[in-house]
């Protein structure tokens, strides 16, 4: 047997039952690798229920920093008997299969191309611990100890993590450390020299952080000064609000009174959630909400109102597969059209596409500036993968002298000193953005009655066609202004001949760069543009025009970004090839590479053709 033999470059999959406490053990493992300075990316693949169903935790370790899903499993830790056989079969030839050998493997487990590593997890655990709850939890810790030995991970890194975790309850640390040691010793005694995969300390990660996108966004909203949120629970967006609440509990308590400088309202549904945001923003407080697809659908009427009445809204859509009884715990990028054109009538909304936690934080904060500057909804398009999985990312940044851009708001003084007649919908500056006022500011000036579109420039009611038409067209001027304010795309030109261009966004980024780099290593240079916002800027159009072969990578069925590019940039559809992943799992580099090769549009370097790729699955 040709054992897989690698340092800092492998994929390990933990196969658990959800609700069994495996998450923290698996996280402990991933974090240990991170702390060794080695790039790592865990992906949690969980069912839409609370307890008792299969869940997988797939960790990719890659010294080069390629952290998209790779596909193919080198090491499996199989703890879930429900899926044991499937998990067994998924191990790549030469790989390692670690399982609970308290019960022997059934007969049909007959592979001779992998190394089976039996650890009697249950019996080891039962021998050492008597408390039944601890028994269940620590079984997971034992296999982390096993891995520590097999992969040559310094045990002290793991014990250190545990001590940190239980800083406040050191008593609880002890049995955990004991469990680690049990696993370590058992593996050392029974499986010396078995595993040829190992982890070695690296200097690849120095300043990076490892966190989930939802926490980063929640924190961004705290930094941006958001004070009002109405929200309704929905996976995978709930943890944004939870993070927001956690951080406001830390940093937004009024010292003198103990009162909170924030209003967080768990609404009765998404219609109310967005209503609360609109009311709060209209009344001058930075307000936001977070939801997922079903919530977007429900919010669409009010999003349209906000567009027409020109009210700032910050909304995060953590995308999952539709509909409600779809696969709500799987990732997708399939709400682009629903968000970009949300609501009836002619509407268009600003979208931002973060790709990692740092950008979640940054766009989280910028979204408020943009929404207030542009007086319109800004929708941050995250997804389950970005929002709920931990990602290695550059640290979050905040300029210490950063001021909020509250946009064109007239203060009491502004109103007092104003000579001209103020018009809520008067385009004084020619950028399509008008001056707004906040209720209660001035005794006699600036009051108006907010409505959708049946108003003139002075916010008086009218059904006059010409006023209506002029207003609708001004909104398009504002749309043009938006293009100058939103985050610009990230362009990487490697091939000055501009032959092949790749466009992508959000969580396809890592896999895309990995694929590009594989082509590059084989002599084919590919340029790339990462879309970071909608509407699209001139750079996007230029990039497309410059290239003769273009691929748009997305995680949806219908090529939604491509649709928007064609439409809004007036691009000939023939120019854009879609690469679409719709299986609900984060896209893998190999998928992209295969698609580009399979397109028959380019000549594939021979070297690449010969490379053997790790298999798919899931």
């Amino acid at each position, binding site marked *: 047997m040709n054992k897989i033999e690698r340092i800092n470059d492998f994929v390990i999959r933990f196969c658990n039952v959800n609700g069994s406490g495996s998450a923290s053990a698996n996280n402990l493992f991933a974090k240990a690798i991170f702390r060794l300075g080695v790039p790592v990316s865990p992906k949690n693949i969980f069912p839409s229920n609370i307890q008792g169903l299969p869940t997988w935790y797939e960790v990719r370790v890659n010294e080069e920093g390629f952290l998209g899903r790779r596909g193919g499993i080198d090491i499996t830790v199989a703890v879930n008997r429900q899926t044991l056989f499937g998990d067994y079969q998924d191990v790549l030839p030469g790989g390692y299969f670690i399982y609970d050998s308290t019960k022997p493997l059934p007969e049909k487990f007959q592979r001779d191309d992998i190394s089976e590593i039996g650890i009697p997890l249950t019996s080891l655990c039962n021998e050492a611990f008597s408390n039944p709850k601890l028994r269940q939890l620590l079984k997971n810790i034992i296999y982390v100890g096993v891995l520590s030995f097999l992969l040559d991970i310094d045990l002290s890194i793991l014990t250190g993590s545990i001590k940190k975790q239980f800083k406040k309850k050191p008593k609880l640390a002890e049995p955990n450390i004991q469990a680690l040691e049990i696993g370590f010793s058992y593996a050392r005694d029974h499986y010396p020299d078995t595993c040829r995969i190992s982890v070695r300390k690296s200097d690849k990660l120095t300043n990076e952080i490892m966190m989930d996108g939802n926490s980063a966004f929640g924190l961004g909203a705290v930094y941006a000064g958001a004070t009002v949120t109405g929200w309704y629970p929905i996976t995978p967006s709930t943890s944004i609000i939870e993070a927001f609440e956690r951080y406001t509990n830390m940093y937004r308590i009024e010292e003198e009174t103990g009162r909170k400088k924030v209003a967080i309202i768990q609404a009765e549904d998404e219609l109310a959630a967005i209503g609360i945001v609109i009311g709060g923003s209209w009344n001058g407080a930075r307000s936001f909400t977070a939801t997922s697809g079903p919530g977007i659908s429900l919010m669409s009427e009010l999003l349209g109102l906000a567009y027409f009445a020109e009210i700032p809204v910050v909304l995060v859509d953590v995308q999952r597969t539709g509909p409600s009884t779809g696969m709500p715990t799987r990732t997708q990028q399939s709400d682009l059209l629903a968000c970009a054109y949300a609501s009836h009538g002619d509407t268009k909304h600003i979208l931002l596409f973060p790709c990692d936690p740092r950008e979640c934080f940054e766009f989280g904060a910028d979204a408020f500036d943009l929404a207030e500057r542009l007086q319109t909804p800004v929708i941050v398009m995250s997804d389950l993968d970005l929002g709920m999985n931990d990602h290695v990312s550059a640290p979050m940044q*905040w*300029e210490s002298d950063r001021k909020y851009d509250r946009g064109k708001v007239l203060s009491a003084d502004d109103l007092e000193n104003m000579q001209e007649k103020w018009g809520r919908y008067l385009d004084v500056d020619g950028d399509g953005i008008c001056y707004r006022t906040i209720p209660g500011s*001035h005794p006699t000036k600036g009051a108006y009655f907010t409505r959708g579109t049946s108003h003139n420039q002075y916010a008086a009611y009218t059904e006059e066609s010409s006023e209506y038409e002029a207003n609708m067209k001004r909104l398009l001027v504002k749309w043009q202004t938006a293009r100058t304010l939103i985050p610009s795309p990230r362009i990487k030109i490697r091939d000055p001949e501009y032959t092949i261009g790749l466009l992508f966004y959000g969580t396809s980024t890592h896999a895309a760069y990995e694929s590009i780099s594989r082509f590059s290593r084989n002599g084919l240079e590919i340029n790339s543009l990462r879309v970071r916002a909608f509407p699209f800027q001139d750079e996007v159009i230029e990039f497309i025009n410059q290239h003769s072969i273009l691929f748009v990578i997305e995680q949806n069925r219908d090529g939604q970004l491509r649709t928007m590019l064609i439409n809004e940039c007036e691009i000939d559809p023939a120019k854009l090839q879609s690469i679409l992943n719709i299986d609900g799992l984060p896209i893998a580099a190999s998928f992209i590479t295969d698609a580009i090769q399979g397109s028959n549009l380019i000549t594939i370097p021979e070297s690449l053709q010969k490379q053997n790729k790790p298999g798919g699955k899931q």
Partner: protein
Amino acid sequence: MSYARPNFRHPKQPENDAGFTRRDYEGAISTLCAGCGHDSTTNAIIQACFELNLEPHRVVKISGIGCSSKTPAYFLSRSHGFNSVHGRMPSIATGANMANRDLLYIGISGDGDTASIGMGQFAHALRRNLNLNYICMNNGCYGLTKGQDSATADRGSAGKKGVPNPYESIDLCELAIELGASYVARGFSGDKKQLVPLLKGAMAHNGLAFIDVISPCVTFNNTASSTKSYHYVREHIETTNTFDFVPLQREILTHYDEGTSQEVTMHDGSIIHLHKVDSSKDLTSRQKAVNNLEKEKEKGRFLTGLLYVNPEIDETHDLINSTLRPLNTLTEEDLCPGSEILDRINSAFR
């Protein structure tokens, strides 16, 4: 189209204690049907604000969609207003109120807007005891869409088409009491004398004050067979205790005999004096309040007046323990933890 009212001001218009004339509380000329109950309700709101010496610009008007929801254009033109979408006034008002707890919020809705599409938001604004004056102009029909029965139409009542409504009607006051409103009243647009003090009490109240104003639709539901017609309502009205609303600023001069009156002190120190007619009508017990309503209903009568009040219940801001300062006045200094703390947070993720 709302026509601007001529700016001419009669020199002798009386001023209230805050120095405003009644006209300072008016709005554009109404475009509702002549005789529409909503216009009378609008007038009562204007009167209540005038008598309470409110600063117009410290009031916010929010509405849904419907003939009723248009009325904020017809009062308080110096206040900001928001004509939102159908049934969502409560959530918009919630957001607005969260942003600035220092203003007075008037929410205007209709029976369609509240009892059908807005039922969920209505219920939950009540449950949170939002500090809002929720005024439902109730005509038992969908005025703006030409008179369909609403969910408050009584069983058997018939509008312009003459077809009796087969469904049970929803009593919004009972529901409001059931769901936690802290001030619940029913008025009649045709009885301004009663309605104005009900509105004043509501405005002085800290928490959700729900006022169901029976406000006939002359165009679609003022027929002989409608139970929400002017005629029918006048004939079938029953009032709870009459009451005086005494704002804090005024010296309390009236004297009440022991036992004949119940005194409720409002959050701002104003006092409501209820003249008890019938001891069963204890207005601070939810259960009794509902029973009072049911009892009159069995007799086929509308009970109007102040139905329930409890000034002790915390409003939303207190329930969530938010700062006393308006959130919309807080700045970077108040809100942003700063870059040093961010460094610390970053470290926690290493």
